[in-house]
C-alpha cells in the first residue's frame, strides 16, 4: 500500500511519529485529523454499524498511541493504521458472533455470523485507497463524484442540484475522475496481475 511520498510529507510524518513516541497528546489529535475519516470508513465497511465503527476507530488510535515505539519514524502511517483497523474490526466481528449456540436450521440466512470470511487485507487496501483518493479531491470535485456515484445522479441532475452549468459539472467530473484514476492506478494494476 505504501506509495511514493514527497520529501516534505516524509519529514512531516517523521516529526509526527517522534511526537507520538514522546507521548504528545496533540500528535494523537493530528494523526486522527489526518486519518480518522479513513479509519472510520474501513471500520464502517467491515462492521456496517456506525456505533461499533466509532468504537473501533477510537480503539485504533489508542492502540497507535500505545504502540508508537514500534512504528518506524518516517514511514507512511497509512498501512500501519489500516492493519490495526482491520484487526480491530475483525476482533469486533468475532465478538459480535459470540452468541448462544442454536440449531443451524433456525439461523436466519441473513445472519452475519453465517458470512464466514471478513474482508481480506486486499479488499481493505482497496477501501482505504478509494477513501484516501476521494479525500484528496477538491471539495467541489468530491461533491460531484459523491452525487454521481453514491447518489446515482446524472450530470444534468447534478448541475440542477448545484445550480451550475452542465458543462461545469462535466469538466469538474472529468478532472476528478482523472485524479482518481491516477491515484488508484496501483489498485487497477494489482487487479490485472
Amino acid at each position, binding site marked *: 500500500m505504501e506509495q511514493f511520498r514527497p520529501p516534505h510529507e516524509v519529514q512531516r510524518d517523521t516529526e509526527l511519529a517522534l511526537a507520538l513516541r514522546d507521548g504528545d497528546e496533540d500528535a494523537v*489529535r493530528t494523526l486522527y485529523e489526518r486519518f480518522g475519516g479513513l479509519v472510520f470508513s474501513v471500520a464502517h465497511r467491515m462492521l456496517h454499524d456506525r456505533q461499533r465503527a466509532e468504537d473501533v*476507530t477510537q480503539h485504533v488510535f489508542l492502540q497507535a498511541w500505545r504502540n508508537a515505539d514500534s512504528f518506524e519514524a518516517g514511514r507512511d502511517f497509512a498501512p500501519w493504521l489500516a492493519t490495526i483497523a482491520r484487526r480491530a474490526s475483525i476482533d469486533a466481528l468475532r465478538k459480535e458472533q459470540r452468541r448462544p449456540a442454536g440449531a443451524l436450521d433456525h439461523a436466519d440466512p441473513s445472519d452475519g455470523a453465517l458470512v464466514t470470511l471478513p474482508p481480506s487485507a486486499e479488499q481493505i487496501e482497496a477501501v482505504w485507497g478509494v477513501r484516501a483518493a476521494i479525500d484528496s479531491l477538491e471539495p467541489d470535485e468530491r461533491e460531484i463524484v459523491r452525487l454521481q456515484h453514491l447518489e446515482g445522479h446524472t450530470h444534468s441532475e447534478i448541475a440542477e442540484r448545484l445550480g451550475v452549468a452542465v458543462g461545469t459539472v462535466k469538466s469538474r467530473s472529468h478532472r476528478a475522475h482523472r485524479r482518481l484514476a491516477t491515484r488508484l492506478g496501483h489498485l487497477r494494476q494489482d487487479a490485472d496481475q
Partner: protein
Amino acid sequence: MNDTNNSDDLDMDGVDGALDADIAALLADQSTWAEPPPELGDRVVAAVRSESALGDSAPMSSVSSFVAARGRSWMRPALLGAAAAIAFLFGGIVVLSALSGADSGSDTFSAELTSTGLLPDVGGDIDVTSFNSGLRIDLEAPGLPRRDDGKFYEAWVRTSAGDLFPVGTFHDGSDVTLWAGVELDRIELFTITLEEAAGPTDPGQGTSGEVVLRTAIQP
C-alpha cells in the same frame, strides 16, 4: 437517475467510466463516504489523556490520609472525648471479633477510577479492604449505563506479574461489592470492561479488552 449513457450526460472522453468496476462499486458504497461524528476526535484524545494520566500519577490515596485531610481543628476537643469512647467500643469489638473468629479487614485503600473515554462521562471510585479470605472491593460508579440481556460489566485486577484476575460481573455500577482472591501488594491495576455473554462453543471466555474505567493500584 443514474442514466450516465444519456447523450446529454456523456463525459468528454469517457474518463468517468474508465474506473475499474471494483473501484466504481466502492465509490457507490455508503461506507466509503461515511464520516465519523465530530466529537469522536475529542473522545480519542480523552482516552489517550486518561491513559497518560495513569502513567504519570497515581489517583490513589489511603482512607486514613483522606480522613485526616478532611479533619477540622474546631472539632478536636469534641473528638478527644469521642475518641476515648470509640477506643473503648473498638476494643470491645476487637475482643468480640477475636472470640468469634471474625475476619476484620485491614490495609484499606480507596482509589478514583479514570474513564478511558470508551463510554462518555463516566467515573467512579473503589474502596479496597484486605481480609484473610481475599480483597473486598466496594465499587461506586453510578454513571455506568445499565447493561442487560446478556450484556454486562466485568471487573478485573491485574498483578505486576501480568496475571489477570476476574473479580465479578454486574449490571450497573451502584453499590457493587467485588471479591478478589489475590494479595493487595501484588495488584497494580483495576479495570472494568464491557462484556457480552458467549455461547458454550466459544473458546475465548476471557476479557473483551474494552476497558471503560481503570485505576492504578499502588498500596
